[in-house]
């Protein structure tokens, strides 16, 4: 086995021996070192490292060269590079492994070295070695602790020989602990030989192999394996190659900075140095040796011919039968010896045979009835190059391989076992002796014969044919048929399908797919009327033509309406009150409103506050300016103080006026929430606000947790103290003296006290395991209490290019923040979980509820997923801030991965609307990020706008409380003057460029509960419609204007090229307002209309500006995006409309039926009524007195009353049969009894006769056995009983104590 040195590993302890592929072994070692396996993504590993944990990632050389994860400082981060040594000089050092075992040892050394340097490094392992299965010694926990324990002291000394010496020390230190030699270079072979080979990685492995081969052939040679590839250990190599006349550098590449150059630099004694590729090494060396000195052919191992093994994996009762049948069939091909080695081994039947006929080509063979039966143990019964035959319903090699466990695939691949599968025969065709499975076994036998005689594709059926002929000669034609069929059905599995890389964790660094693009406008060749043609050409191409008006619009009419309404201005700046306990409804309010109400309150208290009232607007303006120029988020109290001072400085007031203003300002400050935070509309405001709200949510919980664990600490200390005091040690004189203190020790004699105190145990002592657990828990809690802020409460990751000045929080710039966030959260969570787990133990221990059998295992496996909601709130919050542009361009993959990971990482996306680069490529808008997030279902998705601070605050608060992934998309207006921002933010919201929405998985069980679109302006419409009032020829007119996406961005210079003023003379009916145009436009763009926007110029005159088709289509795209949201929210839901229409039609139909029935019934009633009236009238007229006939007619039954009703009513009226009450049992007073409920437990009776009187579960007496006592005792007990609840009854006939006198005494109690 490569890398295994059994003779050297005898001294190794605390290690386990396992068969693993190289990369699996590395993954296991890293899990043992880092607490988790090698990370898939370097960024994730980096996140873990940021959280202060060791981390490693498995990546190929190219990916490592692309990214900069290794460039991090102060990170203990080891990367296993698949691309071979020397691919890129990244990291402080690089170790190259020549075997899997060396790679494992290198992991230990690299972590140790990284820890000492405070820098990451590389470990490399050639892919051919990494995918191969090897027997490897895995380090145990003791060895890990020993080997890594001293490596956590960053020294920050890197480079040059200093690092080489340090690396040598570390490598030797690991070697001492593992018992395996490990140095800068490893030597093997004859140390004094003149022929030397040197290599690293796979080259070194080949050099060693060749040196061994040469040694067997009597040629002395030495091999040198370079472990430290960078910095190159020149001195060590020089020493290792000293005296060598010929040096072969085993290296596949011819890079200028390869091993050859290093060796030439190191060896300067005139040795001949040749580079040779690993595959040509032996041949090259043989060529250069004197003739006859070495014959490679002589050393080529020959296959052993005899003692082959046949392993049959039984499936059901026919396994042994199959084995025998196979043996019999193969016995026909030559002498087959059975007997001594025929045995069952771990459920397998093992046969040995020797067949001269197949000697050269036969191989160990394993036959299995099902792929599931294949196991590593059975496979290891085969020597390498054997074969496996399996019955499997597969159609292709790949499909068959998928049926195998990855470990089995790897083992098959590693041991070079050829694999054949036999398609199973249909059961219905099996007619051999009634044995259903005989067909399968013969098919297997056929396959086995074909496999034995096959060296490759396709398997030869010659042997099977010979065996079949023999069977036919015996008259067993059916068996021969199945044998041939089996051979025919046999297929060989392609080796690629078994490659172990299929089941290894593969690193995927593929870039995200490019975004879809909207179709480009096409040229319109149609030439019509001149102006119309120019306008149309501009609309379609966006190219300005000479003669066309090039004046830019001053303002979109819709925007003018918004500006007139001053929609956003009253809301900015706004006050968050109070941040410590924000309530969603009243959390954020405009500063103007807050100050206005406060002044009104001052006046309501009887103060005139005239100066303040007159200058309130000015005060608000000054405060707003201070906020705009200062840091984001200032305290309202402080702000008012400063603004008030400036106001007083501006006003030239008399002394009295100044005093009045000062008093008024004091009153004003008293009435506003002084600790409220004031925020202005700026791009970093959402982040400030989020962090402020997060702090308000989490800080009280953290404080509460600290107080709780303080109490738990005291409780655990008490437990230990009590245990110590109750123990023998706690009762010694010294311990008692310490307990008594100096004063107490003076008055009491501790020695005497120690002798006096009882020696026996008082309280039960703690079990040793429990004591250990309590001490360990106490240590963790105390450590946390000493440094409660050791972990940051909030960790913010940001990409390069986003500058932030945020409140105090840990923040880090990262190239791929979304990918790193997962690792960072895991790392921080893992550290906090230790404390939370200890708190759980402490709670259980404090109450005495800890049960090792119940709690040990879950606590050992505790991770963030098992935490409660309250505990999750105590984990450090990880937030990522990024931009909408980055997300659209290439961060979808890490975002999706993050959302699917369920980790409560919150992503704040600053989505800038109207940016110049977006105007260049309008298809950027196509991707709705919110919809993308919602598609992940379990993440909180919020779209919010700076235009509505109250809603934004509510959303951010919801996110701050969310214990799930959350993405908050905040629309940020383009960089424009401050006074424009509220207007532009509002325009972006209304133009559906960034609609407000909320998808909260916690909000309810139905989509309608979870999704909310209500806060958008006019959510039922495609675009909000506003009414514009204007003057034309002195007449006031109105115009309904829809605010589209084009209106929202019309002011941006970057969009100016999409608009062109239409001279008024060119206005005609082929021009449509953009909203109408979008209703009518067809995809081909062959409509006769051109769209325009309403503008207002500086003089207030209406203008039309034609819109390019590109911008119009961008608007259509926004409208479609909005329409999707509308449908999700139930606006104009087509399904609902269809259902309503159907219901309406059905109701109409029913109504018609009812009307018809009603008419018919009415007619019938009229007819019958008339008939009856006539009959009664005739009867009255014809009867002598008229009275009898005048009696009321019998009442007709009510129409529709069920016919059963009268019967049921009658039945109900009938009296129910009276059930006979069970006859009460006649009480007899002949037997003694006790009225137990009255017993006072006074013990009188039980002491009198404990067998006669017993206590029940309520500790009250009853007569347990009347025969156990005498009548005299019963009477005596009755007389003694203070509750008089014992009734002696009558004496038994055989009771001799029953005297008449006693019976008379007893009568009083019966």
């Amino acid at each position: 086995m490569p890398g295994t040195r059994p003779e050297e590993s005898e001294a190794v302890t605390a290690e386990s021996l396992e068969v693993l592929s190289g990369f699996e072994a590395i993954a296991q070692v890293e899990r043992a070192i880092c607490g988790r396996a090698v990370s898939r993504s370097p960024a994730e590993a980096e996140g873990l490292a940021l959280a202060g944990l060791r981390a490693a990632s498995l990546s190929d050389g190219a990916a490592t060269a692309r990214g900069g994860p290794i460039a991090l400082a102060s990170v203990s981060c080891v990367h296993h590079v698949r691309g071979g040594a020397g691919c890129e000089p990244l990291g402080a050092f690089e170790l190259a492994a020549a075997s899997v075992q060396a790679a494992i040892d290198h992991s230990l050394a690299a972590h140790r070295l990284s820890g000492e340097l405070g820098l990451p490094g590389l470990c490399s392992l050639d892919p051919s070695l990494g995918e191969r299965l090897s027997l490897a010694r895995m380090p145990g926990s003791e060895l890990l602790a020993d080997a890594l324990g001293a490596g956590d002291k960053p020294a920050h000394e890197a480079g040059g020989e200093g690092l080489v010496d340090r690396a040598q020390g570390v490598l030797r230190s690991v070697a001492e602990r593992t018992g395996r030699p490990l140095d800068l270079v490893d030597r093997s072979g004859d140390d004094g030989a003149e022929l030397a080979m040197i290599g690293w990685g796979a080259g070194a492995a080949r050099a060693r192999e060749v040196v061994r081969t040469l040694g067997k052939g009597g040629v002395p040679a030495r091999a040198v394996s370079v472990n430290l590839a960078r910095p190159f250990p020149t001195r060590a190599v020089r020493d290792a190659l000293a005296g060598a006349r010929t040096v072969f550098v085993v290296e596949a590449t011819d890079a200028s900075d390869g091993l050859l150059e290093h060796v030439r630099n190191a060896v300067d004694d005139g040795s001949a140095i040749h580079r040779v590729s690993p595959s040509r090494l032996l041949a090259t060396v043989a060529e250069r040796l004197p003739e006859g000195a070495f014959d490679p052919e002589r050393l080529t191992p020959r296959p052993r011919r005899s003692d082959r093994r046949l392993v049959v994996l039984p499936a059901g009762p026919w396994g042994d039968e199959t084995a025998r049948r196979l043996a019999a069939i193969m016995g026909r091909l030559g002498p087959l010896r059975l007997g001594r080695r025929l045995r069952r081994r771990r459920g397998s039947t093992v046969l040995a045979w020797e067949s001269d006929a197949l000697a050269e080509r036969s191989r160990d063979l394993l036959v299995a009835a099902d792929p599931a039966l294949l196991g590593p143990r059975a496979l290891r019964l085969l020597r390498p190059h054997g074969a496996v035959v399996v019955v499997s319903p597969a159609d292709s090699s790949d499909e068959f391989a998928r049926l195998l466990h990855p470990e089995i695939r790897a083992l098959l691949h590693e041991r070079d076992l050829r694999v054949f599968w036999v398609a199973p025969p249909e059961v219905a065709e099996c007619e051999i002796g009634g044995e259903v499975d005989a067909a399968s076994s013969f098919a297997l036998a056929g396959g086995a014969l074909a496999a034995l005689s096959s060296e490759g594709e396709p398997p030869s059926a010659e042997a099977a044919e010979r065996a079949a002929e023999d069977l036919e000669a015996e008259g067993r034609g059916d068996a021969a048929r199945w044998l041939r069929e089996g051979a025919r059905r046999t297929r060989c599995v392609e080796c690629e399908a078994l490659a172990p890389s299929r089941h290894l964790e593969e690193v995927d660094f593929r870039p995200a797919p490019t975004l879809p693009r909207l179709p480009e406008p096409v040229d319109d060749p149609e030439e019509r009327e001149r102006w119309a043609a120019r306008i149309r050409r501009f609309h379609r191409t966006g190219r300005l033509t000479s003669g066309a008006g090039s004046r830019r619009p001053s303002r979109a009419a819709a925007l003018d309406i918004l500006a007139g309404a001053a929609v956003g201005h009253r809301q900015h700046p706004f006050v968050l009150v109070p941040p410590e306990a924000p309530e969603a409804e009243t959390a954020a309010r405009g500063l103007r409103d807050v100050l206005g109400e406060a002044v009104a309150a001052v006046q309501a208290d009887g103060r005139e506050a005239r100066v303040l009232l007159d200058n309130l607007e000015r005060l608000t303006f000054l405060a707003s300016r201070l906020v705009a120029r200062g840091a984001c988020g200032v305290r309202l109290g402080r702000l008012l103080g400063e603004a008030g001072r400036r106001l007083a400085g501006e006003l030239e007031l008399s002394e009295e006026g100044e005093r009045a203003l000062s008093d008024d300002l004091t009153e004003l400050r008293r009435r506003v929430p002084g600790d409220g935070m004031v925020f202005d509309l700026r791009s970093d405001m959402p982040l400030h606000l989020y962090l402020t709200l997060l702090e308000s949510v989490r800080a009280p919980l953290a404080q509460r947790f600290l107080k709780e664990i303080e109490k738990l600490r005291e409780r655990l200390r008490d437990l230990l103290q009590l245990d110590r005091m109750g123990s023998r040690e706690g009762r010694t004189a010294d311990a008692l003296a310490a307990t008594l203190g100096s004063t107490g020790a003076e008055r009491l004699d501790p020695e005497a006290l120690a002798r006096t105190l009882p020696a026996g145990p008082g309280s039960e002592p703690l079990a040793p395991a429990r004591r250990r657990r309590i001490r360990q828990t106490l240590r963790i809690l105390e450590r946390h209490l000493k440094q409660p802020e050791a972990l940051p409460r909030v960790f913010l990751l940001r990409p390069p290019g986003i500058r932030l000045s945020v409140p105090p929080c840990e923040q880090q710039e990262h190239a791929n923040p979304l990918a790193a966030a997962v690792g960072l959260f895991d790392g921080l969570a893992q550290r906090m979980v230790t404390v939370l787990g200890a708190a759980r133990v402490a709670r259980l221990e404090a109450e005495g509820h800890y049960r090792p059998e119940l709690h040990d295992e879950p606590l050992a496996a505790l991770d963030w997923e098992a935490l409660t909601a309250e505990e999750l709130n105590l984990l450090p919050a990880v937030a990522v801030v990024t931009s909408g542009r980055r997300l659209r361009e290439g961060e979808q993959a890490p975002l999706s991965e993050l959302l699917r990971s369920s980790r409560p990482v919150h992503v704040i996306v600053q989505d800038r609307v109207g940016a110049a680069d977006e105007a260049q490529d309008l298809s950027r808008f196509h991707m709705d990020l919110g919809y993308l997030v919602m598609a992940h279902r379990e993440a909180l998705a919020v779209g919010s706008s700076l235009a509505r601070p109250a809603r934004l605050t509510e959303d951010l608060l919801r996110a701050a409380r969310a214990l799930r992934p959350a993405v908050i998309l905040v629309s940020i207006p383009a960089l424009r003057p401050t006074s424009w921002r509220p207007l532009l933010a509002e325009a972006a919201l209304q133009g559906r460029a960034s609609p407000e929405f909320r998808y909260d998985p916690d909000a309810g069980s139905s989509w309608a509960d979870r999704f909310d679109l209500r806060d958008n302006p006019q959510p039922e419409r495609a675009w909000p419609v506003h009414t514009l009032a204007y003057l034309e020829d002195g007449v006031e007119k109105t115009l309904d204007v829809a605010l589209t996406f084009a209106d929202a961005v019309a002011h941006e210079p970057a969009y100016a090229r999409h608009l062109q003023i239409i001279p008024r003379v060119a206005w005609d009916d082929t021009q449509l307002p953009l909203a109408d145009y979008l209703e009518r436009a067809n995809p081909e763009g062959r409509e006769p209309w051109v769209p325009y926007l309403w503008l207002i110029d500086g003089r207030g005159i209406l203008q039309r500006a034609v819109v390019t088709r590109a911008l119009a289509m961008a608007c259509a795209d926004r409208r479609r995006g909005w329409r999707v949201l509308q449908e999700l929210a139930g606006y104009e839901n087509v399904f609902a409309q269809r259902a309503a229409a159907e219901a309406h039609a059905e109701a109409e139909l029913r109504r018609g039926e009812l009307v018809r029935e009603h008419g018919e019934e009415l007619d019938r009633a009229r007819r019958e009524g008339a008939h009856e009236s006539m009959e009664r009238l005739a009867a009255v007229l014809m009867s002598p007195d008229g009275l009898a006939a005048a009696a009321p007619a019998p009442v007709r039954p009510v129409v529709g009353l069920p016919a059963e009703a009268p019967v049921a009513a009658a039945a109900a009226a009938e009296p129910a049969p009276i059930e006979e009450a069970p006859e009460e049992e006649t009480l007899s007073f002949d037997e003694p009894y006790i009225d137990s409920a009255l017993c006072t437990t006074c013990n009188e009776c039980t002491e009198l006769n404990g067998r006669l009187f017993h206590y029940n579960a309520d500790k009250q007496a009853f007569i347990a056995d009347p025969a156990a006592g005498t009548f005299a005792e019963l009477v005596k007990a009755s007389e003694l009983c203070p509750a008089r609840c014992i009734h002696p009854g009558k004496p038994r006939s055989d009771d001799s104590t029953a005297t008449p006198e006693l019976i008379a005494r007893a009568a009083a109690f019966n």
Partner: protein
Amino acid sequence: MYGLKTDWPEEAPPSYFTLDDYAGQVPRWCPGCGDHAVLTAVQRLCRDEQLEPEKSVFVSGIGCSSRLPHYMKAYGFHGLHGRAFPVASGIRARRPDLNIFVSTGDGDCCAIGAGHWVHAIHNNMKMVVLLFDNNVYGLTKNQTSPTSRRGQKTNTHPRGAWLDPIDPIQTTLGITNVSFVAQTVDWNPPHLLATVKAAHHHPGLAFVRVVQRCPHFPTEAVERLRSDPTQLLLLDHPDGIEVDEAVKKAFKRREAHDPADLDAARVLAGRADGLPVGLLYRNESADRYDLYSVDGLATPRKEKIEALREELNRYRI
């Protein structure tokens, strides 16, 4: 995914305490003593309410009744004569999470401990007080107790007690801030148990006088009550002690009494035509001193010292 691992077995496995789990030493009271009935009632209360033994503490002074802590398998404090109340108050002040029971006798409570009795009632700290009243000093072999009737012949007054007895119920009802006063008899276990349960659920100091007999020195007054059911007056009210109708039948006389009416309770307590049995008075909103005393109990020592230092720093010398 978060939320998958929800089967965390943090809760302790369910346990059930039986009467035996509360049984301490074997009682050494005389057979026939009413104390047994009280002990059984308390144990049944603990069992029915599943009170954790380690969360219950029984405090007593000196006397037959005061041996009760020995017979309960829980925490116990067999204190000095008459000092059960201050000990129990101290425990309540520092460990508000415990169930506290005080067992005291007519001598322990009404003679040497009378001062503490008055203040304990006044402080109204949550606990259950069981006054074992047999009208005689039984443990010390028949001496006059504060509740002995006039004329009762004892070793200290062979010709009969000279004075009328102290009535513990009347006395308790006369103390400011009294919140729960009930009276029962040992020979009616269902009523006794129901009374003790009501006392346990009361959010203040519940004072229960249990009239009981001494088997060795039975007094005429108790014997008369025990042998003649007409001597007992059952107080009946929806807010009173809840017992079954069958239990009520054991009482020949009933009278409606609203336990919220303190004046009526005082009148009832003074009546000579029968012993009122049941709940005389209850006021759940009476002030409790323990609620003030536990304030700040959870403050860590470090913070307390810091606060103290800050307070003292305000004074300059």
